[in-house]
């Protein structure tokens, strides 16, 4: 598998996760999915990803915590956080120090996502 087009998608909303997977696959990406931070960390150990797409609000470990753990192992990881929360909410502020490239506010525009991923 081409690691440069392999994405890790961490999202507890199965439908959102599924729709995003189908979208990214049609755009030529390989997508590995996780529904929790713990699962994501396990997957991150076993695979290499060009980019991590992570929901902030997750059951168990939050997206920010999970990302922090990932960053501590692979500081160069490109990561994008996703959230359904408001701009300026506490969760988003905590995300600013996580090392993510940006935060995408659901329902985000696809082009915005693709711009980040393509870079």
């Amino acid at each position, binding site marked *: 598998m081409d690691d440069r087009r392999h994405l890790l998608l961490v999202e*507890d*909303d199965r*439908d959102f996760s599924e*729709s995003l997977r*189908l979208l990214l696959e*049609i*755009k030529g990406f390989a997508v590995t999915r996780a529904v929790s931070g713990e699962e994501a960390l396990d997957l991150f150990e076993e695979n290499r990803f060009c980019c991590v797409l992570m929901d902030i609000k997750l059951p168990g470990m939050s997206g920010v915590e999970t990302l922090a753990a990932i960053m501590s192992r692979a500081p160069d990881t490109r990561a994008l956080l996703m959230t359904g929360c*408001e701009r300026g909410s506490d969760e988003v502020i905590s995300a600013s120090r996580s090392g993510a490239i940006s935060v995408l506010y659901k*329902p985000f525009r*696809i082009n915005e996502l693709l711009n980040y991923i393509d870079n």
Partner: protein
Amino acid sequence: MLPLLRKSLVARLVTGFLLLSLMTVAAASSISYIRARDVLVDSVYERLRVAVTLKENELNRWIGDQRQEIVYLAKSPEIRDNAAQLLSRERSHRYFREAYFRMSENSNAFIKRNPYFREISILSADGGRVVFSTIPEHEDTYRPHDLYFTEGLKQTYVQNVYPSPQSQEPTMTVATPLINERGERRGVLAVHFNLDWMERLILENAGLGETGETYLVDKYNDFVSGRHFGRSEFPRGVHTLGIDRAVSGESGYGRYLNYEGIPVVGYYRWIAERELVLMAEMHEQEALAPAKSLGLIISFVGSIISFLLAVAIFLLARKTAGPILAIAETSRRIAAGELDLDVPVLTGDEVGTLARAINTMVAKLRSLYVSAARDEEKYRLLVENQTDLVVKVDLEGRFLFVSSTYCEMFGRSEGELLGNAFMPLVHPDDQEATAREMEKLFVAPHTCYIEQRAMTRDGWRWFAWVDSAVLDENGEVFEIIGVGRDITDRKLAEIELEKYQKHLEEIVEERTSQLRDVQSELVQKERLAALGQLAATVSHEIRNPLGTIRNAVYTIDESLAREELVNVRKLAELAQRNIDRCDRIINEMLDFTRKRELIVSSYNFDNWLQSVVLELDVPEGVVIRKNLGCDREVTFDSELIRRVIINIMSNAFHSFMNYDAGRKIVNLTTKVRESMVEVSVADNGSGISPENLKKIFEPLFSTKGFGVGLGMAIVKNIVEDHGGEISVSSEAGEGTTVTFTVPLATNGGRHG
């Protein structure tokens, strides 16, 4: 005099007797006087009648005498012969002159001899010519119509008193015919009388006393005799009751006023043949003098006897009243305060009994007085030395008693206060309340309590009064006793306190109001915050499905463009499902915020519940054990309760997620308890931590990664709207039991 009468018994007795006896004497003398007067008047009448009869007789006799004398004269040769010559000869004839001469001599001799004659004249039968008169001026006059001529020619005629044609004085004439030797009536001898004789005749009062008077009045109401002879004094004649009656032909007695206006007793008689009134009168004063003196004597003697009797009565009364007077005098001194005196017991009769009774009374009084003096001293000490104010007033509120403390407090003397009303001293604002409170004195228990201001020596001060009514033997209030105390200091403190209290209340009120404002502001803010949180949660929840839809649509679009339609159906399903999710989330929020009216229907509860369970999307490995005990009709809103069941069951299913419970069992139980259906859902899932359990019914609370967090809040609302209750018990690691009740028959707003 009058005070003496009122005070002295004896004086009253004597005066009374004197008055009575004097009245008797006065009556006796008056009756005597009246009786004597009547008798006297009768006797006077009799005397007067006798006098009048005597006078009349005398008059008639005298006139008869004169008539005889004249008849005799006419026949005497001296007259007859000379008259024949005078009547038959010419005045110038010698015989005539001789006869005239002799006639004059004879006539004058007659007049001289008989003083009653005034004039002797001879009238010729031929025309009544006066051929001779002793008053020569009358000669050669004619008197053909005079009665004495016409009648005297026929026979001897007395012309009663008449006014003389010559002198107009009353006169009387006797005429007789002169007959010659041949028996021819040649003339008339007329003698005119001096009426002076009548005066002499009549005035001889025959024992008629000092004022007795007899007189003659002619038919022209002129005096013919008496002191008032002639017409000059009474130009229109003299009129008295007696005279007038007599002139009209009556005779009789009477008491009337005489011609001088003096009351007289009179007798009058009309002498028809003489055409004269003969009056006899006596002044009443003289006539009744004996009656008067009789009355006076009786009065005088009676009065003397009365006085003597009065003296006797006085002495007798003194003797009888002596003991009473002694009692009276001693009683007066006892009344004046000499209580050590005793009334003298002088007699053994009723007066003695009275005296002894008085002595007993005085003895009792004495002992009463001593104890009263002792009591008075005691009460005086009590009243004078206490600081409270004591007053007694009558029913009109006038002072009957004031204590010295009261006088001092109000700066007035006892004399100034007694008899005056207390109310004017009371502050005008307190008068009405005082009067109203005092009404209570007239009903049991006849006391009242008053707080009032009054104008004291030092200005307005507050007093507290305890009043009590004094009742008479009939239970009627007749006096009021009040005991008062100056409570100005307390009252002012109270007023001050009240002021502070009021101020405090105002402050509290103000602060409360401020707090209320703040609170309502807070509530408002909280509501806004809650709303904000709800909106945030809702928007957060809705963003995932929206994002899914966007992704799906984008991918479908991309797939269509690339004609890679493998996943299009799946994408469309995703979009479709998430649109439903959005819709559900919005509805859930609306359900929570909007109170829905219940639409009730009846179902066999257990059957209905089974149909709901069949609809559930039961996760793999989960077993539902049913233990149903409500096989009967229940009335409820099936749509809402269905949601409750689904919600609770979903939570139960959810509790098995990411949790290894071994066998995943959900126990669904129904039973009827009292008038309710009790439904309980028990799982052996992950359980709920105690802090989360506390918040389980709070809106927006959620432990799930999805859902608005309104589920249990809405469940609670629905159950409570039905009139049921819901409770949750849980222990981490053991599982959770949710139990709720619904009434067998819910009163719904509508029936579905």
